[in-house]
C-alpha cells in the first residue's frame, strides 16, 4: 500500500471527535482543538501495531499531566484519584480505538495488536525508516496530545488473530 492511501489527519480528527463525545465530553463543550506546529511533550507513549498488507502503528503521545487529565475524564474521576495503571490503560485504549477504526480504512487482512504503553525514553518498536503518514495534534485543557500513524515495519509486537 502506498503512503498516499493511508488515513489522513482529517480521519484521525473524526475518530478523536467520536472518542471525545463518547467518553470525554458527552455534552460537546470541551472538545480537543486541533492545532498546528507545536511540539508535544514526549513523556507518555501508547500505541497499537498494525500488521498485514499495511504495516505500522498508531501512536498516542502526550505529557504525563495530559495523560492523567485524559484518564480522569475517561473514567469520570478526579485527576488525583486516578491510579497509575489506569492512566496507562486509558491512553492505551485510546490508541486501540483509533487503531481499530483506521484499520477499517486500510486494505483487508490487516491485524491489530493489543495496546502497548511506555513512559519517557522509550517508544514504539518500529524500524528506523518508518514514516509518519498523518499526525493530529490537539490542545485540551491547556495541554497537548498527538495521535500519529506511522508506516513501517514493527518489531517485537504480538498481534491478535
Amino acid at each position, binding site marked *: 500500500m502506498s503512503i498516499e492511501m493511508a488515513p489522513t489527519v482529517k480521519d484521525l480528527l473524526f*475518530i478523536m471527535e*467520536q*472518542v471525545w*463525545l*463518547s*467518553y470525554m465530553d*458527552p455534552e460537546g463543550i470541551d472538545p480537543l482543538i486541533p492545532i498546528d506546529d507545536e511540539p508535544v511533550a514526549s513523556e507518555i507513549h501508547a500505541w497499537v501495531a498494525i500488521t498485514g498488507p499495511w504495516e505500522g502503528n498508531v501512536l498516542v503521545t502526550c505529557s504525563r499531566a495530559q495523560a492523567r487529565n485524559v*484518564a480522569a475524564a*475517561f*473514567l*469520570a474521576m478526579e485527576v488525583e484519584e486516578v491510579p497509575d*495503571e*489506569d492512566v496507562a*490503560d*486509558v491512553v*492505551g*485504549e485510546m490508541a*486501540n*480505538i483509533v*487503531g*481499530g*477504526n483506521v*484499520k*477499517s480504512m486500510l486494505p*483487508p487482512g490487516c491485524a*491489530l*495488536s*493489543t*495496546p502497548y504503553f511506555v513512559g519517557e525514553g522509550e517508544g514504539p518498536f518500529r524500524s528506523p525508516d518508518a514514516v509518519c503518514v498523518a499526525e493530529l495534534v490537539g490542545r485540551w485543557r491547556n495541554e497537548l496530545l498527538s495521535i500519529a500513524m506511522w508506516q513501517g515495519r514493527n518489531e517485537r509486537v504480538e498481534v*491478535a*488473530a
Partner: protein
Amino acid sequence: MRAIVIDDSRAIRLILRRIVGQAGFEVLEAGDGKQAMEVLAGLDGAPELALIDWNMPNMNGLEFVAAARGDQRLRDMTLVMVTTESEQSQVARALAAGAHEYVIKPFTSDALMEKLALLGLVPSGAQA
C-alpha cells in the same frame, strides 16, 4: 438480570459496568475470554448478557463467542461484541460465530442502550 463484561481494558470495563449497572444489571467482569469462562463456570446459571471485546490476550472475543455457543449452559446468554474491529468482514465473522449484536468503539451509552433495547434486554427508550 446479570451481565458479564469481558474486556482487557479496565477503563472500558468500568464504563460498561456503569452503563449496564444503571440499567439494572448486576455486573460481573473478566479481563479475557478464558477468565470469563472460569467466572461463568462458577455461577449458578448464566447471565442474560455478555459484552465482549475482540482483541484480548489468552482467549479473544471471537473464540469466546464460539466457546459460549458450544456450551449448553450458556446457550441463552445474549452475546454482544463491543470492539474497535469495525470492518464489515469482522462484523460478519462475529455474527456467523454466534454473536447477537455488534457495537463499535467508541460508543455512547445511548447507542449501547439502543442495541440492548433491540435485543429486548432493556425497555425501549431506556437511558443509562
